[in-house]
């Protein structure tokens, strides 16, 4: 099962895309700002060090080198927190004074040798740019004044921090907004899904609540409600139509049968005539049987009867049926085996009479259509997902390619055509199974036929919905069906 994420995949994609765009835009903006401000700052620092070096050179001319060194070391001039540093080399090229702790003398002096008169110290984010100016001293040696772009670096650090913070905040806001929107549309989609599921489970009056917003989801909700209205109207029509047919078709049939019955009581010279009349009555009766069976299948499929469900003890029901049918099975020269695991089969919510009719239908098929000496087995097997009721025999069975046709209305298998019947027994039983959220599989028992009615634990849950209307599809292509079902889930 898919983890239940609060975000829909669409919204997640949207958020990721917007975030990337935001980061790129912010980076571009920041770089531009940084480069501009850096150039400006560098020019000002260059000017300043040039000023300082000129003044210090003058000081040296009047006070001598020692005076200069004392002056610098005393630090009298450096009240400025962003003070420049001073480096002095004597005539031999040895560094006699260096006031910077951050920038090594070598780095400072080699920068002075460059035409741009600036350098960088440190790595990564702690990189400091510095600018230097140097001048020869009157008594030999050289004086160098440098200043690192502390202010510039600070402002850059602030900018980087601000940038990161801003980006993060923007992302968070975007995520929250996305979550909000996504949550809202998610609730609406959820409404639609649950409405469709409950409609399919027989709650015909349920519709998607309309939010009043005019967007594509509202369009979808509108379309769903319209379709459900249409489906409901079709079902109503079907029910009305059966009532109409019942009234208008059965009235003449009833009169016809009554007339034939009156006539059949008369004495005829020709015994053939009397037989023909009886056959006519039988034909009318069988017409009515087919008609009722079709109506019943239709009504079962509409799910109306679920409102009358009670708790049914399946093992007891099977035992009851086996008890009734034991003598009938014996009379037909068959043997009946009952394998009922009584342990933990939960009661089924259902209609006891219909469930009984369904099982008897399959059992009587086995009795009727197998030769003498066949063993018929009624089984109940507990599974992790529910339980199986099976009616199997070791008779001649049905060829694989015929099995799927058994689920069709009016289909009669070659071997059974000689026996009475209309080919509506299995469709009727399948309709009962589906009314109960169960589904029917018919397969090869090797030898014989194996009919399995699978009752899932939670028949009207969403994951079962796909399976519900699929009796008969399982036998031919099992993997394909399960693939189709998982697509639905």
């Amino acid at each position, binding site marked *: 099962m898919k983890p239940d994420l609060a975000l829909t995949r669409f919204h997640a994609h949207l958020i990721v895309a917007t975030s990337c765009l935001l980061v790129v835009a912010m980076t571009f903006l920041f770089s531009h700002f940084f480069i501009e401000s850096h150039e400006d700052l560098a020019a000002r620092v260059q000017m300043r060090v040039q000023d300082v070096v000129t003044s210090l050179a003058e000081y040296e001319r009047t006070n001598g080198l020692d005076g200069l060194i004392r002056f610098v070391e005393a630090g009298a001039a450096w009240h400025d927190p962003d003070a420049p540093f001073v480096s002095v080399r004597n005539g031999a090229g040895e560094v006699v004074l260096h006031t910077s702790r951050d920038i090594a003398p070598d780095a400072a002096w080699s920068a002075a040798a460059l035409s741009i008169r600036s350098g960088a110290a440190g790595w990564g984010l702690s990189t400091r740019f510095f600018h230097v100016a140097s001048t020869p001293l009157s008594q030999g040696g050289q004086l160098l004044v440098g200043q690192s772009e502390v202010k510039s670096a600070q402002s850059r650090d602030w900018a980087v921090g601000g940038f990161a913070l801003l980006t993060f905040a923007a992302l968070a806001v975007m995520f929250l907004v996305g979550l909000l929107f996504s949550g809202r549309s998610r609730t609406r989609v959820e409404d639609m899904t649950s409405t469709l599921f409950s409609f399919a489970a027989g709650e015909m009056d349920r519709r998607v609540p309309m939010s009043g917003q005019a967007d594509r989801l509202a369009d979808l909700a509108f379309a769903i409600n319209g379709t459900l209205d249409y489906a409901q109207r079709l079902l109503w029509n079907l029910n009305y139509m059966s009532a109409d047919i019942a009234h208008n078709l059965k009235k003449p049939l009833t009169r016809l049968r009554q007339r034939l019955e009156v006539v059949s009581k008369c004495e005829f010279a020709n015994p053939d005539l009397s037989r023909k009349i009886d056959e006519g009555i039988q034909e009318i009766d069988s017409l009515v049987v087919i008609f009722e069976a079709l109506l019943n299948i239709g009504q079962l499929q509409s799910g109306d009867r679920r409102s009358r469900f009670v708790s049914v003890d399946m093992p007891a029901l099977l035992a009851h049926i086996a008890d009734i049918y034991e003598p009938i099975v014996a009379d037909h020269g068959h043997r009946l085996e009952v394998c009922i695991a009584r342990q933990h089969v939960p009661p089924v919510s259902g209609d006891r009479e219909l469930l009984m009719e369904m099982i008897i239908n399959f059992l009587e098929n086995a*009795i009727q259509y197998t030769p003498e000496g066949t063993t018929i087995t009624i089984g109940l097997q507990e599974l992790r997902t529910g339980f199986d009721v099976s009616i199997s025999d070791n008779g001649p069975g049905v060829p694989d390619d015929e099995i799927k046709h058994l689920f069709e209305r009016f289909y009669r298998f070659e071997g059974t055509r000689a026996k009475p019947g209309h080919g509506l027994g299995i469709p009727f039983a399948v309709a009962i199974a589906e009314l109960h959220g169960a589904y029917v599989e018919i397969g090869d028992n090797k030898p014989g036929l194996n009919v399995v009615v699978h009752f899932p634990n939670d028949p009207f849950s969403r994951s079962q919905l796909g399976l519900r209307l699929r009796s008969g599809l399982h036998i031919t292509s099992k993997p394909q069906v399960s693939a189709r079902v998982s697509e639905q889930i």
Partner: protein
Amino acid sequence: MRILLIEDDSETAAFVGSGLRQAGHTVDVVENGKDGVLLGIQDDFDLVILDRMIPGLDGLSVARTLRSSGQSVPILFLTALGSINDRVQGLDVGGDDYVVKPFAFSELLARVNALGRRSPLRDEHEKLCVADLEMDVVHRIVTRNHQPINLLPRECLLLEILLRNKGRVVLRTMLLERVWGFRFEPKTSVVETYISRLRTKVDKPFKTALIHTVRGCGYSIYEA
């Protein structure tokens, strides 16, 4: 029996009415639901036969009105609406039996007779008998010619129903409903098999057979 027939189709009403009269019942016919309710409440009938789709007031409402006015008269629905849901609805509003059109008159008659004879309270020492066959209903003891006969519970119930309708036809469908709880026609010979087992125990060892088959219809127990 005095029977009220509420049926709007005159041909069916005439067919049912004349058949019931021939069988010795008195039949009053009305064509719409409102008259049916009025008559049903005023007069004391032994049975109401009710169509469902009738003008005035539909059959279900007629049955509901009769029941809510305190009438406990047996009601038999005779209707074209024959699906499972329709039957359930009919029995829900207080109907006692449900016959679907088109119908065989013999079936209707058997069901009418069965409804008319309902509800004698069970006597503690109630004994049912035909010829030399006796059944103690409470203790489920069956004897014939003073020899005890061992019957399984379902065979016993089958025999009891036949004995309670001594001399009259009991339909296969009525037996299916009462003995097995089947409201459908099984494809195999359930009733025949059980009747044949019952005959083996009750009739075979003795000179005369008491259980008789009524062709195409049902069974009857009587002394020939």
